[in-house]
C-alpha cells in the first residue's frame, strides 16, 4: 500500500535520525545559494530547489585526505584514513538527476580498482530521492533517459502531493527496511501527486550521437563548439557525474597530508605531461574530451551515458556553452 508523509513528519524524522547519530545530508541554504550539506536539524532541509552543486560530494567529496604523514628523529610515520569509520548517512531531497548519478559512478569507481572511499560511502548511504514538479530552461533529464519522476538510484522516493506532503515509496530493499523501521512517521491512504515537471527538452538520439563521435574526433566542428570555452572547472565541478580527481601532497617536510580533490578536463594543465608535452594543447580538444567521455567512452566501457540532464553545466558556463545545443548539432549531422 502507498504510504504518505507530511512535510512536518519528514523534518521530525530527520531530527530523529540526527539524534540517533546518523549524518543527514540535504539541500541547505549556504549564503545566497543552496548546497548539499550535512544538516543539524530537520528545519534546515530545503525542499524543491536544485542545489547549485550536485549530490556527488556526498560520496566523492570536493577534497578529502587519503593519508597523513609525519617525520621526526625516529623516522617516518604514515597513517591511512580508515574508510570503515565513515558515518551512516542519509541523503535526502535529491532530484532524479542527482539521485541517479552515484549508481552511474559505481561502474568507474569499482572498475580496475575498488575506490574504498567512494564505495564505503555508497554502502553506508540511503538515498531519499524527490520527484521534480518544476523544471527550468536548462533541464533535460528526459533527453538522456531519465524523468522528473524517475526513482533510479533512490532507495526511497518522495513524490509531492496536492495539499502538501509526499508519497513515500520504497525502491530498494534498503529503502524498505528503512520504511519499516520508521513506519510511525508515515500514514497510509490515497493522495494525488502534483503534476510532474515538464522539461522542454529536445529528444536526443544517444546512439546516433555516439556513432558520429566514433568517426569525428578530428572534426572542425569542435572549434565551432568550443573555441569560446574559457577552460574553467565550473561545468565539471557542478556536474553530478564528472568524477576526475587530482592527488597532491600538501604540508611541510615534517608533517602533511595526501589529498584527493576534484579536477576537470577543461583545465589547461589537466593533461600536461611532466615532459612538458600536452596532448590536449588547445581548449577545443579539452571540450571535445568532455563530450567524448560523456557520450562515447563511458558508453564503450560501461554501457552508460555520463550525463543525467541536470542542466548545471548549462546554467553555470560563463561563456554560455549549452551541451544540448552541441549534442543537437551533432545529431543533425549525417
Amino acid at each position: 500500500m502507498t504510504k504518505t508523509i507530511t512535510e512536518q513528519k519528514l523534518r521530525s524524522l530527520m531530527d530523529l535520525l540526527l539524534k540517533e547519530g546518523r549524518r543527514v545530508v540535504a539541500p541547505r541554504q549556504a549564503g545566497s545559494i543552496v548546497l548539499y550539506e550535512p544538516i543539524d536539524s530537520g528545519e534546515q532541509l530545503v525542499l524543491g530547489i536544485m542545489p547549485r552543486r550536485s549530490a556527488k560530494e556526498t560520496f566523492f567529496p570536493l577534497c578529502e585526505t587519503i593519508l597523513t604523514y609525519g617525520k621526526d628523529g625516529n623516522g617516518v610515520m604514515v597513517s591511512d584514513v580508515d574508510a570503515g569509520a565513515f558515518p551512516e548517512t542519509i541523503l535526502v531531497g535529491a532530484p532524479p538527476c542527482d539521485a541517479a548519478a552515484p549508481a552511474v559512478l559505481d561502474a568507474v569507481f569499482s572498475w580496475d580498482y575498488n575506490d574504498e572511499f567512494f564505495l564505503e560511502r555508497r554502502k553506508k548511504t540511503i538515498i531519499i530521492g524527490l520527484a521534480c514538479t518544476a523544471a527550468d530552461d536548462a533541464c533535460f533529464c528526459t533527453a538522456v533517459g531519465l524523468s522528473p519522476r524517475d526513482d533510479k538510484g533512490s532507495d526511497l522516493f518522495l513524490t509531492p502531493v496536492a495539499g502538501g506532503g509526499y508519497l513515500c515509496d520504497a525502491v530498494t530493499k534498503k529503502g524498505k527496511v528503512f520504511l519499516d523501521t520508521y513506519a510511525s512517521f508515515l500514514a497510509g491512504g490515497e493522495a494525488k501527486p502534483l503534476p510532474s515537471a515538464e522539461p522542454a527538452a529536445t529528444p536526443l538520439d544517444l546512439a546516433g550521437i555516439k556513432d558520429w563521435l566514433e568517426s569525428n574526433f578530428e572534426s572542425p566542428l569542435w572549434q565551432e563548439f568550443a573555441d569560446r570555452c574559457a577552460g574553467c572547472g565550473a561545468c565539471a565541478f557542478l556536474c553530478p557525474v564528472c568524477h576526475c580527481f587530482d592527488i597532491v601532497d600538501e604540508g611541510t617536510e615534517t608533517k602533511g597530508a595526501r589529498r584527493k580533490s576534484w579536477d576537470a578536463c577543461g583545465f589547461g594543465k589537466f593533461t600536461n605531461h611532466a615532459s612538458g608535452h600536452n596532448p590536449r594543447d588547445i581548449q577545443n580538444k579539452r571540450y571535445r574530451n568532455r563530450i567524448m567521455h560523456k557520450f562515447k567512452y563511458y558508453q564503450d566501457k560501461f554501457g552508460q551515458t555520463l550525463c543525467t540532464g541536470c542542466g548545471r553545466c548549462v546554467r553555470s558556463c560563463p561563456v554560455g556553452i549549452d551541451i544540448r545545443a552541441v549534442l543537437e548539432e551533432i545529431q543533425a549531422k549525417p
Partner: protein
Amino acid sequence: MQQNHTQLADDSYFAAVTNAIRTETTKLLSEGTVAAVIGYQAGTRAGTVIPTIITDAAKAGDLVFSPGCVNNLALYLTKAKKEVRPAGKVAIIAKGCDMRALAGLLGESQLKREELHIIGVACVGVKGAGAGSGEALTTGTIARKCRECTVRAPEGADVVVGAVPPLPEFSPVEAEELARLEAMTPAERWAFWKGHFSRCIRCMACRQVCPFCYCEQCLCDRNRPQALETTPRPAGNMAWHIVRAMHLAGRCAGCTECERACPMDIPLNLLNRKMARELKTLYDFEAGLVPVEKGPLTEYREEDDQSFIK
C-alpha cells in the same frame, strides 16, 4: 518584498545597437579592414548570448546586442586565448567597462592599438546575478556594476553604436555593501570572507574569464614546488583569493566578470573595488582610464610612500 521595477530602454534601443553592429561588421569584413569581428550571438536559452568570432560578412546577421551581453570579450584577445585569436586586425564589440580592460591590456603591451578596431557600445547596462534568462532589463535586474557605471559613453572607440536613453538614478548597492564591510571590525570582516571562501571550489572560472589573468603559469597552479595549496580547503582558498586580489590591484578594469562567472556566488568584486580604492588613495591611480605602460605596483618612484619600511 515585491517592488515595482521599471524597464530600462525599450526594445528599440537594443534593436538599434544590434543593427549598427551588423552594419559595421558587414562593412569591416567585406572591405577587408579587419580579419574578424568578436561579438555576441544568440544563445540557446531565451535572452542569453554566446561569444562568437565572425570572419565572414555573410554571418554579420548572427550578431546581437541584448541585456544578456554580459561577457567581456577582451578575454578573446589575450594570450590565454591565443589559439583562437585570428591573425591581423580584429574588431571587437566593447561596452564601456570592457573598454577599460582593453585600455589595461594595451598598457601592458598585450595588444597593439593599430591591430584593434573597437566598436564601442553606448551602454544602458546588462543583467546581473539572479535575473532569469528570459527577464527584461529593469531597475531590479540590472547588474550591480551598471548601477554605478561611469563609462556608459565609451571614449576612444573607433566607432560608437547606440545612444543611451535617459536613465533613472540607481542606488549604489555595491558601494553600500563595501561601506558596510569597511565599517566592520577586522574580526567581522574575516568572518565575512571566511564564510564566502568556504564555498570556493577552486573551479577557477573567476581566473579563466578575467582578461588580466593571462599568465601562462599561474602561481596558483604551481606544483614543483607548490606555491600555495591547490586543494579547496580554507588555507588554500584564502591564499588564492589574496593572490588574486593582489595580482589584479591596479589592473582590474572593474568588468566584474570574475564575480559573474563564480558559480558559488562569491562577491569577488568587493575585493576588486577595495583594492581599486586603495590604489586611488595611495597613488591617485585608476586602472583602465587610459593605457599606461606601468601601473603603480610595477613601478618605483622616488616620491612613493616609504613610511611602511621600518
